[in-house]
């Protein structure tokens, strides 16, 4: 491993930090969901970094893991977005008229 900070690694760390910060500070559910996704991307980059670092060239396994992770993240995000939408329409509904859905 090189002593010079790997820009790839730095990017991963930055993503993690931004994601974490966003998750902690934002109150709006949509923003928070985005923050989680950013954090997730940081994690995936870390995995790719690990794959690069492995002795004997890039290791395929972390890549497989990233793919799986992305699938899961996407589906979870989709579910989250649906929930956010539901909660927002509900709030609107609350403001206008009682919800009978």
């Amino acid at each position, binding site marked *: 491993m090189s002593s010079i900070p790997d820009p790839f690694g730095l990017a991963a760390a930055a993503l993690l930090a931004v994601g*974490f910060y966003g*998750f*902690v*500070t934002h*109150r709006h559910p949509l923003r928070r969901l985005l923050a989680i996704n950013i954090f997730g991307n940081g994690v995936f980059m870390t995995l790719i970094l690990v794959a690069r670092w492995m002795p004997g060239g890039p290791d395929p396994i972390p890549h497989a893991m990233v793919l799986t992770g992305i699938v899961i993240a996407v589906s979870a995000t989709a579910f989250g977005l649906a929930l956010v939408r539901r909660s927002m329409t509900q709030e609107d509904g609350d403001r206008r008229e009682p919800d009978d859905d």
Partner: protein
Amino acid sequence: MNLLLILLPVLPAVMALGALSGLLGPRGTTCAVLVTSALALVLAGVGADGLHLDWLLLGTSLGLDATGRALLAVAALVWGAAAISSRPLFAGEAGPRYSMCFLLTLAANLGVLIAQDVAAFYVSFAVMTYAAYGLVVHDGTDEAVRAGRIYLVLSVAGECLLLSGMFLLAAEAGNATAAEMGAAYAVLTHPELVAGLLLAGFAVKMGILPLHVWLPLAHPAAPVPASAVLSGLIVKGGLLGWLRFLPDGEPALVLPGDVLAMLGLAGAVLAALIGCFQHRAKTVLAYSTVSQMGLLALPVGLLVAGRGEAALLIPVIALFAVHHALAKGALFLAMDHLKGYRPLLAAVTVLPVLALVGAPFTSGLVAKGALKSVMPDALATLVTLSSVTTTLLLLRFLVLAWPRRDSQTVELRRVAVAAWLLLIAAGLVLPWAMADAVHRDYAFQPGVLRDAVWPLLAGMIVAAVAARAIRPWWRFPEGDVVAPVERLLIRVHGALAHVLEDVLRAVPGPPQRLLSRSILSRLLGLREPGIPWVGLQLLALILLLPVLYLLAA
């Protein structure tokens, strides 16, 4: 025959239950007492061997010694007469209660007479004490209730003394019987302590000098027949306790014995003098009891101190007790019959009075004569002198009790009068019959007769002089020192109760809830943390973990 002994207390005790439930009416109660009395008379006449019941209490020994036999006969008579007099009381509204207390007291009294071991005696003694309370307060007047209260306070104190004495006795000597007392005291570490406690404990019941204060209150407060048994018999329980549970001539017990003798003598004189300044006939009689019991304590003291032979002293003590029980019982019962103007009955009343004074040819003569015969001369003289005060006291009684012309006539119950007369007759005869030939002969010696007559005359003269000199007649409070002591105790109790209450308030009882509200509400004020705060903590945690790992490594 021996098994009949146990019937003596059991029969009236069982009947007491019947009385309480109302199953046993007034007639039944009277019958029950009379049957018991008859049984007692038979047993007293025939005598009975000792009976040991392993299964009862802590192993019970029953038996009749000579003293027990004599007193059993007397008890049968006095209880019988009292029961007949009590008939109207058995029938009253509070009849069942009175009947129950009456029968229980009877049972316990007989139990005291026949119990030979420490535990059984104490059982009977305690039941007698508490059951008699019911007799004392029966009238329910404020006076009776006060008398009952003072009686209870002193009785409980006496019980405590007895109990501690008996603990000390039985711990080292086991549940010993009366016959084994001599040997028992020999093994005790502190015989004088045990003796002192037992002497003092029984002294309460006997009304020995400083502990007598309850007696002039309680005996008069009770209904007439109850007073008769209280003054005639119940007090003798203390005497029997002394005789059974103190050894004779134990060297360590000289001091307690002497103290008792001196207190007895002092009581004999002082109580009589105080009694002279009472204004109710029954109170006077009660003081007479205190005085006579003092006289009885004198030989017991000598016995304990080893200043006389047991073989001589004990029959004398028994004789005197028999004499006093019959005479005092008769005098108290007389109070019922002297309510109307009946000079004849009043004249008969003089007979027991003379007996108590020790006039010639009365039972008092032989009893007192016998008493003096076993004493050192100096003491005998003092006893003779005490006859003067006794005369004064009983004159005071006659003055107060003598029926007046204007008094309302109350219908007499013939059977009660008959029983009373029978009792008086027994009082005249029985002591003579029981006395040893020696004592009988002694009573007729000229010196003795002289000693019997002059105090009587002296008393009369003093009384006549005093009656003129002291006008109006002084009034001495009933129960003499009890009133100030009572006031003091009430004040002390008031103060103590305040202090106690303050203390208890200062040291609040245990909390009803272990968590105080303030702590709870502070804890309950906790709010859920917000997300940023949670995130910060989580971040700190994740960063802390590697540091901790490294530190530990």
